């Protein structure tokens, strides 16, 4: 009888014990190798964004993260990853962003990058995030990492209280639910309370321990690989770096890639996304404004995360294809007002390194398609990155931030009447 029962349940029990060991035993599974990190730097795999182990390993090597969204997948020869490879930058870009990632997702992401402390980062801002309704709940939920969430909850005992409260509230409002105990802990943080010692114990020892093991085990296996695309892109660049020459080359290459339309939109994108229904976009952006948005508060949460870790950040304001702007009837004031507001939020708190590509003298072929930078846009950014990437340590002089929690309020989200 006993033998029969063992034959039935034995394999299941063995499997369960093996699983428990795999997930909770304090074993450090060393799966992240330098080759993996190199692949992860351009892979744009969601697991890299949502995980922690690969990014923390990258911070120990010569990588500086570029945090952004969909533009990062526009890998033409002038993409920073391609340029860094061709011209042997001392530090290489580590790309973090996908279509749909905006400030709050990146705030969680930066919050989870423990080894970013005291280092540099680049942040690409898209005006399109700053819509009236802000980030879409579905997109945020998709990119929300349970691992980073547990990290945020555990870190809530230090750092800025107003920011922790704000983020917890926002996560709850966007409809995230990752387990009863995590939900209750978030609830407490959103009320400005400390989490209970049981919550701390459970989230640290049970949830997070298992998530960390999972991240170690599965966070970097069979990732997307873009290395070939980068190799091909960088092979098209001349051997010597000469900005003027490259600038001409970028314009020329872009022109060859956008022959199907007069809007300087890449053929591929144009044929796939626009050709059939382009007419439906004509003059549809006449009343677009990017100055009233909860995204400003989310963005502030991200700034807090940078400030807490004393990260030196270069902010890049992404350009919009000027021909597309004209076609959709977007008033220029939409862009300039956004610029003024976001720069005010940055500068008044001590974030002074801003590369504004939204208003340049010659905006021809600055974008790859409609709203994503590319070609000359990348080159202009690269020109600034070149020096910035010489050293990955933050200069303490540049991280003297003066954070103001007014920027977390509804009032600021809708404020257009501020002094410069």
């Amino acid at each position, binding site marked *: 009888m006993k033998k029969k029962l063992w034959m*039935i*349940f034995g394999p*299941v029990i063995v499997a369960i014990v093996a699983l428990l060991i795999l997930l909770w035993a304090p074993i450090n599974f060393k799966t992240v190798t330098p080759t993996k990190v190199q692949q992860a730097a351009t892979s744009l795999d969601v697991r890299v964004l949502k995980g922690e182990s690969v990014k923390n390993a990258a911070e120990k090597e010569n990588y500086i993260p570029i945090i952004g969204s969909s533009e990062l997948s526009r890998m033409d020869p002038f993409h920073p990853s391609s340029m860094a490879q061709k011209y042997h930058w001392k530090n290489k870009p580590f790309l973090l962003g996908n279509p749909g990632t905006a400030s709050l997702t990146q705030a969680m992401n930066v919050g989870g990058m423990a080894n970013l402390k005291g280092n540099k980062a680049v942040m690409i801002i898209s005006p399109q995030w700053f819509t009236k309704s802000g980030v879409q709940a579905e997109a945020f939920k998709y990119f929300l990492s349970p691992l980073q969430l547990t990290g945020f909850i555990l870190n809530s005992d230090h750092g800025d209280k107003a920011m922790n409260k704000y983020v917890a509230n926002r996560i709850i409002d966007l409809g995230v639910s990752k387990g009863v105990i995590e939900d209750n802990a978030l609830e407490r943080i959103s009320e400005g309370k400390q989490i209970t010692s049981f919550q701390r114990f459970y989230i640290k020892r049970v949830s997070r321990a298992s998530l960390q093991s999972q991240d170690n085990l599965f966070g970097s296996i069979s990732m997307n690989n873009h290395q070939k695309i980068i190799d091909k892109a960088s092979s098209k660049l001349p051997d010597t770096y000469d900005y003027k020459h490259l600038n001409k080359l970028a314009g020329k290459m872009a022109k060859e890639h956008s022959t199907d339309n007069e809007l300087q939109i890449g053929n591929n994108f144009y044929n796939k996304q626009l050709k059939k229904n382009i007419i439906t976009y004509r003059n549809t952006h006449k009343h677009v404004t990017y100055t009233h948005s909860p995204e400003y508060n989310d963005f502030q949460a991200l700034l807090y995360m940078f400030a807490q870790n004393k990260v030196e950040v270069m902010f890049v304001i992404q350009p919009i294809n000027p021909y597309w702007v004209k076609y959709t009837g977007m008033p220029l004031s939409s862009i300039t007002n956004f610029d003024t507001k976001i720069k005010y939020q940055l500068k008044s708190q001590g974030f002074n390194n801003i590369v504004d590509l939204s208003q340049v003298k010659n905006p021809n072929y600055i974008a790859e398609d409609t709203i994503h930078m590319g070609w000359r846009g990348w080159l202009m950014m690269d020109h600034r990155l070149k020096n910035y990437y010489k050293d990955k340590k933050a200069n303490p002089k540049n991280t003297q931030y003066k954070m103001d929690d007014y920027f977390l309020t509804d009032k600021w989200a809708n404020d257009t009447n501020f002094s410069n």
Partner: protein
Amino acid sequence: MHNITPYSSPHYFIYLLILLLPIIIGLWFGKRFKIYDFFATIVILITAFFGGNMSQGISLIAYVLFEMLVVFGYLSYRKKHNSFGIFSLFVFLAIVPLIFVKLDPLINNPTISLFAFMGISYLTFKSVEIVMEMRDGVIKEIKPFEFMRFLLFFPTITSGPIDRFRRFQKDVLNAPSREEYIELLRSGVNKLMQGLLYKFIIGYIFGTLLLPRVTVMAMASRGQAPLGLSWYVLAYMYVYSMYLFFDFAGYSLFAVAISNFMGVKTPMNFNAPFKSKNIKDFWNRWHMTLSFWFRDFIYMRLTFTIIKHKWIKNRVAIANVSYFALFLIMGIWHGETWYYIVYGIFHALAMITNDAWLRYKRKHRKQIPSNKFTEAFAIFLTFNIVCFSFLIFSGFLNTLWFS
């Protein structure tokens, strides 16, 4: 609290097995705890239907009460009389709630489906079976408690397999012997593990990882050829078919496994359907409890009625008409959209063609070769025809052409 869909996440099994433990211990010692069974059923029903705004739970209660009225109304009538008209009326009454729910999407007025809850189809199949077997005289007596226990047997409540009342009674009226129960535990553990592999690993790969990708690719290249066709549509067809099978077969294995732990031999739903040699063989292996239900309670009965009343003389024609009726009803049951109806008609035509081919083959047995290669070809052909029918069923063509 939200409704917890049974078997939808691995966590569910941990809670479920804890709930089952007293039942398992009882059966080990040859005992059934009626009251605990009842309690466990209530717990599962509450978590599955009474989360959120409770509308599903209220519908379930209303539905069960209504079906009780129908079934016991007919039982008391059947004891004295046996008219075909009254019988038909009661069958119709038994399916009225389901008709309401199924008509909803057509009418654009969601309030009409008073009875909408997950699993209403499967409970209706069970109720109709009871009414029909009462008419046949094989179910003579049934207590309200027994009816409810059969209808609300929780391992199978949301999506089958569809058990039969008399078979079910045989299991629950007695506790299995120790040997029998050990065998049930073995079968239960195997099926549970196989189900986990099917639903949470293979089904996940096809449904969650691959399906969205091929969908996007197929939609992106729909401008390239007439009817939006591209190789990605073909890829979609296979990926969707695999997803459909592994997800549903996985679920069915869970339901049978949990039944086994409770000492009930719920019938299996799938028997290696992609190994079928022809379409008839396929329907004897795919969603078996549903196809057997349709066979016994629609196809056979219609065939007998036609023969009895001599409406049609030709045997082949009788079979063909009944196939059409069966698959059209099955299509309509799936939902009131063109693709479910076309799916039904497609399978009816496939069955008719298949029968014709089998007749032809019987007549020309000598001329038609039959060996390993023809058999492999038959399996390949059947598999592709079935996958094509699932492409219709998936509704993807609707998205591809009309959105």
